[in-house]
């Protein structure tokens, strides 16, 4: 494939992991080729994974010439800093813009964290989680505003941090009490816009696939 440069990169990953997808998108945006190593998450974890991430024993982990980097957003920043001359910058150059990017990329984790509570909790607690979930989406929509991407004209750090969670939204509807109609329109448009990028289209799975996955692993995710 054109533009690929092999730099001794291996990504320990799991197909539907949104955290792994963040790294896949980043690597694709940079035009970096890598070996994808699909891991077992349910059942025995591989020796490789346990050695590469002894602290958390989770994917994704990026191996660069054998040296492991774990935590999706740490990995993405590492890719950006280790390959400064390869492909576009994932974070902006200006320190204030970088600070805003870091703040919002970290905040995007809340979609997943609060989303889990929408599934797992019941009654009044579920109602509160649902309200918080809507608030999180509203906050993200507010930050996006009228811009094409969170950083402005160019696709970047916050976009790739958040977009992998979007195919999960219909599942929050199905298993929780969230309605996809509640996704703010600008955020919905942004999701479609991101989906038009090859890096995103190749890395994400459609909502139906996510739903199938969750249906098979209800116990693991605390869904009834």
């Amino acid at each position, binding site marked *: 494939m054109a533009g690929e440069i092999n730099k001794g990169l291996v990504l320990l990953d799991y197909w539907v992991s949104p955290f792994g997808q963040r790294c896949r998108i980043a690597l694709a945006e940079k035009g970096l080729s890598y070996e994808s190593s699909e891991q077992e998450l349910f059942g025995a974890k591989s020796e490789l994974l346990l050695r590469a991430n002894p602290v958390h024993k989770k994917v994704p982990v990026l191996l660069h010439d054998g040296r492991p980097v774990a935590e999706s957003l740490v990995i993405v920043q*590492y890719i950006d800093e*280790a390959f400064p001359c390869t492909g576009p910058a994932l974070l902006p150059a200006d320190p204030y813009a970088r600070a805003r990017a870091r*703040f919002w990329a970290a905040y995007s984790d809340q979609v997943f964290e609060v989303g889990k509570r929408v599934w797992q909790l019941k009654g009044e607690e579920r109602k509160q989680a649902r309200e918080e979930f809507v608030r999180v989406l509203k906050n993200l929509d507010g930050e996006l505003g009228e811009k094409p991407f969170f950083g402005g004209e160019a696709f970047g750090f916050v976009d790739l941090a958040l977009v992998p969670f979007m195919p999960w939204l219909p599942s929050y509807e199905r298993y929780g009490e969230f309605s996809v109609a509640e996704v703010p329109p600008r955020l919905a448009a942004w999701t479609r816009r991101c989906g038009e990028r090859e890096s995103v289209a190749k890395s994400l799975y459609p909502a139906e696939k996510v739903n199938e996955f969750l249906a098979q692993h209800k116990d693991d995710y605390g869904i009834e």
Partner: protein
Amino acid sequence: MSPPVKLIGFFGSPYAHRAEAALCLKGVPYELMLEDLFNAKSELLLKLNPIHKKVPVLIHGDRAISESLVIAEYVDETFEGPPLLPSDPYDRAMARFWAHFIENKFIKPFFMAHWLEEGEVREAFVKEAKELLPLLEEQLKGKRFFGGDAPGYLDIAASMLAPTRMAVQEVTGVALINDDDYPALSQWAREYISNEALKPCMPDKDQLLAYFMKNKEMYKAGVKAMLQK
């Protein structure tokens, strides 16, 4: 000339301390604005950090930056002074990884182990903290600071294990970090609180102790409430 720097903080907040530590280590003069969090949050705080409504918030001219570790990186990248993060990308990734570990995995069980009443729940957190502490002890590995010879980003991230922890330890009597079990962490904490560059922002030991003594029941009730969530 760079516009003035202000920090919205709170005495006793380990997160606000992180932001002050970053400014001190970088050598950036700043005006400290203290919140009165036991009463109402200020209009300014709510305006500048509408998402989390928390301290610290760094104000640099017309810019407002929230989240202590985001502030630390902003300070590092914006101002001249000794580097807070290492220059090598892999070392930077390691510093960020361990800061994330402290924030997302370590802090909760560690402080739960201090503030909770005796019992099964507390014992579980003590066990968890004891599994995680050796990982941090190993990161110090014969270094004076996590950053090497001088404190840096990871020392800032770990700073609540120095002045805050020492005060909480004394108030609660829980001595998880002690010279016998964790000599490197114990020594690091002493180095941290007596570091020359950090002097301007180091909370006064007696004042901090008095603060936690005074608010002991509130902290204990607070962690109990967190558990029920």
